[in-house]
């Protein structure tokens, strides 16, 4: 059973619908026992970092996340869920979860439209089980004004170019996180969710 963490940030039901379509058992929850007992965790999210972190702290969801990650449960962050696992976000100068070292930065105001909205490529830095069967030409759906900038190079799994080259998939150990929305990225997005559902949390 995959737990989709409910922290009142945006459209959680779209991830749930995609998993149901793939016949992958899941539930939307913020109950600590349910999350701890789940085989995998998805941390989605749309919206502002500041408001999301406020809710996470007030509901003690941060503690649950630290515990579930510590016991090696495979963890997938999506969009805002990817930005706030870093140390901090430039969005409202928010202190974040510090699960992966780095910060979320705002796109520079230099002739690009913000948000970065639409379908874009990913270039793969290193292999990862969630990339299994993904055509290198596949594009994914992005909508964001801030991007993850992990401190350690080895935490970048794939990059995307939009004004700057940024990390569009990050991860280490049992954590993987995408800036784009796999649940809205057609068949290759669904493939990625399927790959995650089969992942044991180890990277060879």
């Amino acid at each position, binding site marked *: 059973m995959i737990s989709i963490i409910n922290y009142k940030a945006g459209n959680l039901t*779209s991830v749930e619908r995609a998993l149901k379509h793939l016949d992958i058992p899941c539930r939307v929850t913020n109950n600590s026992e349910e999350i701890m007992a789940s085989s995998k965790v998805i941390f989605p999210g749309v919206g502002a970092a500041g408001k999301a972190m406020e809710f996470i702290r007030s509901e003690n969801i941060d503690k649950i996340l630290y515990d579930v990650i510590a016991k090696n449960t495979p963890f997938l962050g999506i969009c805002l869920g990817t930005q706030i696992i870093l140390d901090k976000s430039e969005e409202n100068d928010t202190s974040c979860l510090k699960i992966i070292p780095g910060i979320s930065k705002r796109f520079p105001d230099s002739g690009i439209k913000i948000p970065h909205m639409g379908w874009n490529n990913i270039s793969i830095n290193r292999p990862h089980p969630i990339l299994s069967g993904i055509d290198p030409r596949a594009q994914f759906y992005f909508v964001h004004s801030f991007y993850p900038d992990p401190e350690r190079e080895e935490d970048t799994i794939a990059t995307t170019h939009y004004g700057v080259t940024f990390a569009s998939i990050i991860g280490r150990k049992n954590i993987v996180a995408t800036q784009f929305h796999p649940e809205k990225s057609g*068949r290759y997005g669904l493939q990625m969710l399927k790959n995650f559902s089969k992942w044991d949390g180890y990277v060879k």
Partner: protein
Amino acid sequence: MLSKRIIICLDVRGDKTTKGIKFKGNIDIGDPVAMAKQYYEQGVDELVFYDITASSDKRDIIIDVVKNVAKNIFIPFAVGGGIRSLDDMYNVLNAGAEKISINSAAVLNPGLIADGARFFGSQCIVLGMDVKGVKKTPKIPSGYEIVINGGRTPMGIDAVQWAKKAQGLGAGEICLNSIDADGTNQGYELTLTSMIADATSIPIIASGGAGVPEHLKDVFLKTGADAALIASMVHYRRYTVGRIKAYLAKEGIPVREII
């Protein structure tokens, strides 16, 4: 590289009696869910459902459509038509839409853009603009005026000024529809599209007038449009999404490959 998006617009009729009407080319335009699935499989980048239900008591029909679409397709889609309040927005988003498109209601009550952006995020709020070319006047310096009620009611508002104001209020995207070009199949209104794209910094969807793939090429090469809305070109099966994208790719326009 960020792709230019091809967006298909589908009308949703509340009146069940229109369901199942077969138009030329055997497209059942009464079943938006089946059409959405077909276009999703063809590789469309995004969809917009436009609720043309006349009466408010039939609003649940669009909600049913949204729920069914959301179960079957996994690309972003927006819903427009008849959205007048935060409750309307919530109902559509909660049913599975990614974005909501507001048009006349935003002209009559610009605060709706700001409220929607605050509650749901700018990325959800698409401002639909219906625009008509008029004589340049001090009040309408661009020569393009905002009209509502499907083009019947001129509002005395300059289109460029309205686009800038809406961006300031928190609109995340603009769907720019030329009433003059709409339905002509003669191509997008390029002057208007350039003007609005140059005056704003949010994504612009060009709408109205697409008849052949060359029209999409023109709007992408000659204006700052980020996306192009099409309808009859594909509804009447004159073109598939694949054929349009193959043409655009050949012309050097970045589009999402269908693989």
